[in-house]
């Protein structure tokens, strides 16, 4: 029997690698671009003596030096100042102000998924519903998002960034994210499929003959897979958030990444990607945690066993 802790371990390792790897890739990409990084970030005719900037931004001593210094600073929560997007603003500030929006958006969008999944697992949601959910899920998020954006723009005009409008946008965004691209239907059908598959297992049938409850038997065996599915869904939402945030104009991480990308403000791009990587790593860790927890629960030696 394969050692149970290998899978969670791999996940934990991956989770640790992710936030380190993503900025590394992007750094490599900055240096892969034609022209020297400093002048890409701040064109000579915008800021004449680019040499000073290169030095100030650690761009003058090659990719490795830049990466290590950036990482080092990032570890202490210092991401430097924005170069282009909002010159002079600490990127940390931008990050701090963005993550809550994205988190809120994704969590809001995830709630219906969770409910749906639970409903499917407990056989509350009838199969007939799936068809409807799937039909809705066929619309790409961008289409829903642009309708939402139109409504918001027309309704709020220049007040589209007031608290009320932002709340509305958050809800609409969550709705788009949750319904579009098969997010909800995927969660429902996925979980149902998993549970039905397990229900068919012989040990469950026998357990029924012994008068035990089905769920108490199947759950421990499916929890890992369920956690996996839920993580996949969350990731899906997370990456979907980029488009939804940009279209509906929510000041989240995705929008930050997009704006940073457009204005080639690599400080911001790095930080935003780092933020995403952190969130994704967090999900990995959670999944690993669930797996370990179930494994330990399963192995919890019963009362008064002298072994």
């Amino acid at each position, binding site marked *: 029997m*394969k050692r149970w802790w*290998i*899978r969670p371990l*791999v*996940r934990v390792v*991956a*989770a640790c*690698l*992710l936030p380190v*790897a*993503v900025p590394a*890739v*992007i750094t490599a*990409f900055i240096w*892969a*671009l*034609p022209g020297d990084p400093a002048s890409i970030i701040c064109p000579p005719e915008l800021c004449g003596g680019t040499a000073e900037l290169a030095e100030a931004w650690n761009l003058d001593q090659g990719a490795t030096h830049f990466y290590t210094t950036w990482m080092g600073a990032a570890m202490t929560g210092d991401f430097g100042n924005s170069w282009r997007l909002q010159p002079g603003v600490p990127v940390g500030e931008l990050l701090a102000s963005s993550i809550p929006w994205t988190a809120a958006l994704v969590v809001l969008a995830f709630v219906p998924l969770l409910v749906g999944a639970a409903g499917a697992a407990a056989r509350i949601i009838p199969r007939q519903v799936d068809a409807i959910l*799937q039909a809705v899920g*066929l*619309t*790409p*998020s*961008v*289409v829903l998002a*642009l*309708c939402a954006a*139109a*409504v918001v723009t*027309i309704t709020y005009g220049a007040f589209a960034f007031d608290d009320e409008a932002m709340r509305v946008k958050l809800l609409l965004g969550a709705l788009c994210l949750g319904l579009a*691209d098969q997010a909800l239907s995927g969660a429902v059908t996925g979980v149902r499929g998993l549970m039905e598959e397990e229900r068919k297992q012989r040990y469950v049938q026998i357990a029924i003959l012994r008068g035990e409850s089905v769920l108490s038997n199947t759950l421990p065996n499916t929890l890992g897979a369920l956690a996996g599915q839920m993580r*996949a869904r969350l*990731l899906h939402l*997370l*990456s*979907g958030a*980029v*488009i939804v945030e*940009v*279209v509906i104009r929510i000041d989240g991480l*995705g929008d930050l*990444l*997009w704006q940073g*990308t*457009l204005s*080639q403000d690599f400080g911001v*791009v790095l930080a*935003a*990607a780092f933020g*995403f*990587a952190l*969130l*994704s*790593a967090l*999900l*990995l860790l959670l999944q690993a945690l669930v797996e370990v927890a179930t494994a330990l629960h399963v192995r919890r030696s019963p009362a008064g066993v002298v072994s």
Partner: protein
Amino acid sequence: MNRKLAWALATLCFAVLFVPGLFAPEHLSPPDMANAYLGFSSAPPFGADASGRPLSEYAMQGARVVALPALLAGLLVVFLGTLGGLLACTGSQRAEAAAQGFGEVVGALPRMVVVLVVALLVPKDARSLLPIALTWAVLAAPGAMDEAAAVASRLGGARFVEALRAHGFSRARIYLIHIVGMNLRPVLMRQGVETMMQVVFLEIGLSYLAVQDSQPSFTHGDSEKSWADLLYFGYQAFLDIPSSHGLFLGLALVGVVALMSVFVTQAVRAR
């Protein structure tokens, strides 16, 4: 739904969507103010844009933009999925660990981040959906590989192979026909088509964002129009501009893409 019908419908959708791409004009035809904002009509059939250029040309160019990349992305996923399935049949611990490692790291990458980075990396002359689509396919692969592996191990993985060996089948035959052909096909086809659909939607998404900020598109040359341009043109209907026909056409195309994936999924359902 009966398989033959499903296949027929899927093929029909595919043809309707992508074949026009082959006949797409390189540039939109010259403007004709007489047709400006012309709705669905006899000629041009799908109406015209603000300067009277037929929307059908938008649709065709959009088809050309997405057709090949989406197809290749789908194939890539199918290929990687097959790999995952076959790995599970080798029953080698190391192979499985490697597959999982790959899955964990790649699967955990925030897709849009990677896609945007790739989009930036592509030089503006070679700007095309293809690299983005392939990246997306690679990012989507772990899911397909997992599912294929699950199916394979439900077959009994290595034991299944051995059993068939005992019946005197050659390894190649077992892997290609019995495992891939007979058992993995439904999963792989579904995954492949879903990826195709995602790529098309991704293109619409990215292009739409570009149009919105009047930026050059990441996914196609600026002489070309994408389906997103249709949606953007149509979106103005919300602002009382007579361009709803653009919205309808755009949504219709999106709908057909979605239907195609539904039909394929129906068609390949395991018996």
